[in-house]
């Protein structure tokens, strides 16, 4: 598969502050690629560097093999959907969508026809003559999408485009965005701090923190095989327990759990000593016989589809588990001592 964007050792500094440190990644053509991280992690800076709003302090950005780092935004065949949409308030919806085509020198009739088609694509055909202020947030967001897609960019950049919408609309837009990406075949680079959003839409995700890329992988890899503490903790919920490594080799480790039980698990590190062990709360079952861990129940939270148990291990560490609310079998009461059994592959030894 062809590489759409290749970022090579990019560094961004604002005076003494380093916003991005040595970031490298390749994004394939036709991919839905997400930059995920908490605020301040550098993901928006990276996106703005791709768009041309921030210059690159060091490193190189290639777009289908061409160096673009020194090009101004208007010379780059990429378009952006802005977080606040940035629809031109003095232009109509149609004029907004046609703006990029006009700048490219397309004639009035042709660009209006094309813009109308784009509006059709985002289901806003009847709104061509309105001003942006007359649209709802969700409609404005679609116009912003249509506007950015109209010039047929090689790559579409989306800067937290769903963050201003309410939950229901956000969930609906996820499906639509993904469908739109498949329909148009354009590479999408999507910035978000919402991990659920990232997991739901992306082909691959780059998890970022403190100006560095922590891990790049498919949603499944990121969730099930996090490489370090940050990724395991940031994506989904997890229990992190400090354990002693007995032996480690070839990505498998034998560790001693609190309470003395030994288990074999996947390892993202090759060094011994003490490391964090990540155990997802939904991969643990209650077990009367031969449990791996012993805990005392502190609180039972009823969540409808799930039951959330907050417990404390015998060693004193807090430990959460999620059980499906399928059977009416006996629920432990607060104060009860329970045995826990790790599912196959539930535990993963992390690098720091």
């Amino acid at each position, binding site marked *: 598969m062809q590489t759409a964007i290749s970022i090579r050792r990019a560094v961004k500094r604002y005076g003494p502050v380093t916003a991005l440190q040595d970031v490298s990644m390749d994004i394939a053509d036709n991919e839905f690629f997400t930059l995920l991280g908490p605020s301040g992690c550098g993901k928006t800076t990276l996106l703005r560097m791709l768009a041309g709003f921030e210059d690159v302090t060091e490193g190189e950005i290639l777009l289908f093999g061409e160096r673009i780092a020194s090009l101004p935004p208007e010379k780059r065949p990429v378009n952006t959907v802005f*977080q606040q949409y940035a629809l031109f308030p003095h232009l109509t919806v149609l004029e907004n969508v046609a703006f990029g085509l006009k700048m490219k020198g397309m004639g009035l009739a042709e660009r209006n026809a094309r813009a109308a088609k784009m509006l059709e694509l985002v289901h806003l055909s009847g709104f061509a003559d309105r001003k942006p202020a007359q649209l709802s947030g969700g409609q404005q967001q679609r116009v912003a999408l249509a506007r950015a897609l109209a010039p047929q960019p090689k790559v579409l950049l989306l800067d937290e485009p769903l963050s201003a919408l309410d939950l229901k609309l956000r969930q609906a837009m996820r499906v639509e965005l993904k469908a739109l990406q498949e329909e148009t075949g354009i590479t999408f680079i999507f910035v978000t701090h919402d991990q659920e959003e990232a997991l739901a839409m992306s082909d691959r995700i780059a998890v970022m923190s403190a100006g560095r890329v922590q891990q790049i992988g498919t949603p499944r890899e990121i969730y099930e095989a996090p490489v370090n503490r940050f990724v395991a903790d940031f994506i989904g919920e997890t229990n992190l327990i400090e354990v002693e490594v007995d032996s480690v080799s070839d990505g498998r480790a034998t560790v001693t759990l609190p309470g003395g039980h030994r288990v074999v698990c996947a390892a993202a590190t090759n060094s011994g000593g003490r490391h964090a062990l990540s155990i997802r709360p939904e991969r643990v079952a209650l077990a009367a016989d031969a449990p791996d861990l012993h805990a005392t129940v502190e609180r039972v939270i009823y969540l409808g589809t799930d039951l959330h148990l907050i417990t404390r291990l015998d060693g004193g560490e807090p430990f959460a588990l999620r059980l499906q609310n399928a059977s009416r079998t006996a629920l432990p009461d607060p104060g009860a001592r329970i045995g826990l059994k790790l599912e196959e592959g539930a535990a993963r030894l992390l690098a720091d």
Partner: protein
Amino acid sequence: MAGAAPIPETGGSDATYARLRRPLLAPTWAVIGTFLLLPVLLMVVYSFLTKEFRGGVIWDFTLAAYDQFFFDRGLFGDEPARIEWTYIMIFWRSIWQAGLATLFCLLIGFPTAWFIATRPETSRPVWLFLITIPYWVNLLIRTVSLRFILRDQGPMNDALIGMGLIDQPLALLNTNLAVQLGLFYSYLPFMVLPIYAAVERYNFALSEAAADLGANRWRTLVEVVLPVVRPGIVAGCILVFVPALGAFLAPDLLGGAKTFMIGSLIDEQFRGSQGNWPFGAAVSVILMTLVLIVLMIQARAATRAER
């Protein structure tokens, strides 16, 4: 902005304009620099020159103008120096009149600004519009109107006689009262507008919190509202006090010899052969210094409030 590393000046800085800022600012520097900054500096130089009779200067440096302002050395300048009170009194009167006008403007202006800012959003622009109209009307015309009303045979005296309050017309013109009224009337809108802007941004939940904690509305006003909207009040006071201090029209058209203020004193020094340009320049320098001190105190207070 979520996810933003320290992007300087969000929504602001733009490389294009950053590159062009020199040519963009050049006209401003050229015009204000040449036709105001330079003249003000030249005026300071003039205040140290020797006066020429028939108006004008001789380029001999002297402190004569400042000496004339502060000291009295007799008619021929050979007596021992005594403090000259004439000009200091004119300054004192100006400060007093401007201060009083500021106080009256505040007493009327604050409630007005508050009242307007608490109207529903639909009627607020109308009230604001009513306040801004006089602000846009020529100051000279407003002062002339006041002079017309306050004349001996003017509508004000007619009304007072008509109501039976007096039977002889009062001499209202050429009094300190008339000048005070003129200053108050001239600069009242300057007080209302900045306070309005501050009250409009005021979070009324603060007042509700104060009420909830047992303060009545007047206590709330003093303890919570006034401190919070203080920047607006200070701005309004400066906007009234500074122009009132150097006012020319109100004292000239509504006052007389006994109500002489700085503006008239300066004006007189540049009229015809009676003039004394270095002295006029010196009085201007002293006035400007006074204003700069007021502005510096305000700027100091403003930065301290920000911390």
